[in-house]
């Protein structure tokens, strides 16, 4: 499968501070790729390099096979959409007026505005001025702007950080639908649950370096310990090893009708991150 993004030995230094160093990864077309790490780990720096907002100090980055330096060409920018934590919306204009500007900049029919507003569940608020919106609503407008032109590649920097659970689920559904239509999504987040829910593959970034990269399920299996937890009728929780001795004990418990629940002990992505990096996800 062709790559949407390819990064080789990428580094960015700000004076003596190494924001990212030796970063290598690729994102396949049609993939949802999670770039996970705590604040200050280099996620936003990477997005800025990939969208042509920052020049790398070392290494190379390619988007759709073209070096990111080509993104200074306005036509190339039509192929991707960006959502960052800086809203970049006009507060004195309404939601509709903000999106109308971008519709015209991308040369799209105005009907796209209603689609985008529906996507982020803001149809009833479309005539409200952006300055009067809550942080969560503003975030949804920024997302609507990013997907307005149905980009081939969507960069999302903490897309649900200010959203309530209902709207978060609504956005997840929308992102999956976009992905089904063929949009590749590059998602940065420190919300491991979000990454687990949405991403085909994830990379753990810590202190500017990638520590681990794989499919969430594979990582969870790889880091799972060989036990299961059994909850018994007397509220006791018993850890059983997944071997012959454990099977025998389980058989006996079931035979005595004492088993209420059985859980495999897979770690969460957050547990794996802490184990691999020794750091916390804050």
């Amino acid at each position: 499968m062709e790559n949407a993004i390819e990064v080789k030995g990428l580094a960015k230094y700000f004076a003596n501070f190494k924001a990212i160093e030796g970063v290598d990864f690729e994102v396949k077309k049609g993939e949802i790729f999670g770039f996970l790490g705590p604040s200050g780990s280099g996620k936003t720096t990477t997005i800025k390099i990939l969208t042509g907002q920052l020049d790398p100090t070392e290494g190379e980055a390619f988007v759709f096979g073209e070096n990111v330096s080509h993104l200074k060409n306005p036509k190339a920018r039509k192929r991707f959409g960006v959502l960052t934590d800086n809203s970049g919306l006009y507060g004195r204009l309404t939601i509709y007026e903000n999106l109308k500007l971008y519709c015209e900049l991308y040369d799209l029919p105005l009907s796209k505005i209603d689609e985008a507003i529906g996507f982020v569940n803001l149809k009833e608020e479309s005539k409200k001025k952006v300055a009067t919106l809550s942080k969560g609503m503003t975030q949804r407008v920024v997302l609507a702007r990013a997907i307005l032109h149905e980009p081939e590649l969507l960069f999302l920097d903490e897309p649900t950080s200010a959203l309530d659970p209902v709207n978060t689920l609504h956005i997840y559904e929308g992102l999956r639908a976009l992905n089904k239509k063929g949009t590749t999504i590059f998602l940065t987040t420190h919300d491991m649950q979000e990454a687990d829910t949405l991403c085909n593959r994830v990379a753990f970034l810590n202190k500017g370096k990638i520590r681990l990269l794989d499919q969430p399920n594979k990582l969870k299996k790889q880091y799972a310990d060989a036990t299961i937890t059994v909850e018994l009728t007397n509220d006791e929780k018993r850890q059983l090893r997944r071997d012959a001795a454990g099977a025998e004990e389980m058989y006996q418990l079931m035979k005595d009708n004492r088993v209420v629940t059985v859980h495999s002990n897979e770690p969460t992505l957050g547990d794996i991150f802490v184990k691999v990096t020794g750091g916390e996800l804050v």
Partner: protein
Amino acid sequence: MTFSWKRVNAILQKDFKDFSRNSAVSIIIFLPIILAAIYGRMGIDSLQVHFMTINMAFAMVGTYVQCCLIAEEKEKNTLRGLMLSPASTLEILGGKSLLTFVLTIVVVFFSAYLSEYRPASMGIVAFAIILSTLFYIGMGTLLGLVAKSVMESSVIVLPVIGVFTMGSFITAWTEKYPILKVAEFLPNIQLFELAEAVEQGAGFVQVFSELGIIGIWIVVIFALTVVVYRKRMVD
């Protein structure tokens, strides 16, 4: 480089809506007109005073308003949004300057009308005023790009307003302080000298050097603006 009027017009329309709802900045455009009306009612008929109000219109509208509009785009990260869109540098800077251009021309026209300035050659003075407007808008754009916030932009624009509004008076001190002779090359002084020459019957050929110097200022200011803008495209 791509160029689409549709995109320029989209930015212009957005600026018009945004500007008309921003009373803190939009009220500024009335100051030169009020000043011109007062001078006109006082019966002051001096070319220097006429051009003081015209230069004030340039500095307050062309430079100050433009500077605030650009600085606000930067401060609110909306300029970044435009930079990441398919709009080219020319479309963004053109769209961002068009509203201020029209406003400046309208304010200069009303200031001249109310202060009862009637040039001997409307064509030459109008052409020079259009050229000067481009210079002042370029200056406003440059300062707006350099300023880190709207607050900072209203501070750094003050010396510009001082020099270009009162600049005509600097030449009175050139005998005492020869270094101030440099000020004679300022675009506002060149515009004033052009207006004086026109009153004495000069045609386009006789004022070519004044127009040329203003033209050089425009080229320099826009070259600097594009360089700074391109630097701002990359963090």
